[in-house]
């Protein structure tokens, strides 16, 4: 670790702090904003997330070594030191650098898969809840099947079809097997919202189904969707980590926190740092996501909308 990389690391931490402070300041004026920050873990979680996102985005600048670079093949498994912040792995690659680049992959896949899941789930739930009757029945039977299937096994079977799975395919697979719960949630919200008088008013004014759904129903259903999304990213990340750990997800040598754990697995007894730090990173981020999601759920609780 050179002076420069220490500086960039510090810079990322400071940036994360600044982001949290600014958010807090801006949200003071709204009741949900204040409710959000009343949770002590919310700000902490935001900081952790902001920090990891920062180092992921600035990976080329923050990481002291390129992720595939095998520094000294003769002497792998160097313990954490001033030169190698988190040590080197059995292939003599800098764990910290791979962690930083791995953040891009793990966070990216988690976020994108969630985006896929939330989009599909919202669409299905909205259509189902708004149009009801046979559309609803058919779609919900589909969702029932989807919820009943063992997700891990389906994923395992699907990825087994690829030798080296492309990242976009991984995102789609994880996303498309994970939208069923969201669709139920959205359907429930839409079912109740469609009976509200402002929806009837929009229809009386001549609004078509599309306008009613997009401008009236969905914006008012946003809260549970957002919360389920925030909590869902953690799930998606764990899934990706699990698949990668098994060697079925992100293919080596591209770093992902999951396959980093796998890489260091056999040397755990003597070189604990290779597997432990990626594991810690996953845990930290997932906990942060849960804390933020929880605080969001409380902040956006519609029962407290007045005042």
């Amino acid at each position: 670790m050179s002076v420069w990389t220490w500086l960039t690391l510090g810079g990322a931490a400071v940036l994360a702090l600044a982001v949290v402070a600014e958010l807090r300041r801006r949200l003071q004026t709204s009741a949900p904003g204040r409710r959000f920050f009343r949770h002590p873990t919310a700000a902490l979680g935001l900081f952790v997330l902001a920090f990891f996102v920062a180092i992921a985005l600035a990976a080329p600048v923050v990481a002291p070594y390129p992720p595939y670079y095998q520094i000294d093949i003769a002497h792998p498994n160097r313990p954490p030191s001033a030169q190698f912040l988190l040590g080197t792995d059995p292939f003599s690659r800098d764990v910290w650098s791979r962690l930083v680049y791995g953040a891009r992959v793990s966070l990216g896949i988690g976020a994108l898969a969630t985006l896929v899941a939330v989009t599909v789930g919202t669409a299905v739930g909205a259509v189902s809840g708004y149009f009801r009757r046979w559309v609803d029945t058919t779609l919900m039977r589909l969702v029932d099947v989807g919820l009943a299937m063992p997700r891990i096994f389906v994923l395992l079977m699907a990825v087994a079809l690829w030798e080296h799975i492309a990242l976009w395919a991984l995102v789609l697979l994880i996303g498309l097997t994970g939208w069923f719960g969201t669709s139920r949630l959205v359907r429930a919200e839409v079912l109740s919202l469609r009976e509200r008088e402002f929806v009837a008013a929009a229809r009386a004014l001549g609004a078509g189904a599309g306008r009613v759904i997009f401008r009236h129903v969905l914006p008012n259903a946003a809260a549970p969707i957002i919360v389920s999304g925030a909590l869902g990213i953690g799930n998606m990340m764990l899934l990706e980590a699990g698949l990668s750990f098994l060697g079925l997800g992100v293919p080596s040598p591209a770093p992902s926190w999951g396959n980093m754990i796998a890489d260091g697995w056999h040397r755990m007894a003597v070189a604990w740092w290779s597997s432990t730090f990626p594991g810690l990173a996953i845990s930290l981020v997932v906990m942060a996501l849960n804390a933020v999601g929880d605080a969001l759920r409380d902040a956006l609780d519609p029962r407290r909308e007045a005042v």
Partner: protein
Amino acid sequence: MTPALVDVQGLVKHFPGDRALLGLGRPRAVVRAVDDVSFAIAPGETLGLVGESGCGKSTVGRAILRLIEPDAGRVTIDGQDVVALGARPLRALRRRMQIVFQDPYGSLNPRMTVRQMLAEPLAIHRIASGADAQRRIAALLEEVGLDPSFAQSYAHELSGGQRQRVGIARALSVEPHFLVLDEPVSALDVSIQAQVLNLLAELQRGRRLTYLFIAHDLAVVRHIADHVAVMYLGKIVERAPAPALYAGPRHPYTTSLLSAVPVPDPKAQRQRIVLAGDVPSPAHPPPGCPFHPRCPHPKKDARCRTEPPALREVAPGQLAACHFAEQPL
């Protein structure tokens, strides 16, 4: 006689009740929410539609506008048969007929500003956009008694009376001829009720609007209606010009309803008719005359239990559905 602007003939709306056997069996009971309702409203006039909860008055209002699909009947608005219209012409017709809801808190989208709410109908019907739309919005707000600066407010920043005015402005934005007012003042405080009622009366005069005023409060209806129709269990039981109805009701339910309204005068010693029993559920209407179980008429007899009375003219312009309408209470 000028042709009626709104002509409703034989309107029917039934809701299927719960199904037996966890949703797989035959429907248990049919809720006859609206059971053969007919009336007409002349242009520029107000028909007050009164009744207690479960009588079907709100369903009538929504069925006329096809917010709920009627099961049978003809609804003619401005010469056009509303029930048979396809989606496209129906949307065009929506400019002529609008609705104002009861709940000022539920009828406005919590996520939209007043400006957005008023701009939407202008956009849907391509009436105006851009600066022209903004001008119209400001004019509408002034017309309903709100300062144009309210355009940037959200619903939760407004009081009940202000929200109701926004609801009225929204309905007026498409320049309708006919307004269904579904209990527009029931959720407002007394002092605000009077303000909004005055506003509605002014708007009617200024824009030559025709109103269907749905309410449960007979005292309120008295001050705004030209004709009154009283509903009970999905049927109209009495219909008359307002002065005639209030001076001499012909149906025992109307009489009981009028006598039950508390009058703010401690000196008014009235013989209050207190009906026994509850307002019946429209899922299980009694046989014969729907009112007979609670009817206090001294001449009530077996015919009332078996034969539903027809709505017939018992005095010029005054109709009642009672076997003994000639001998009112």
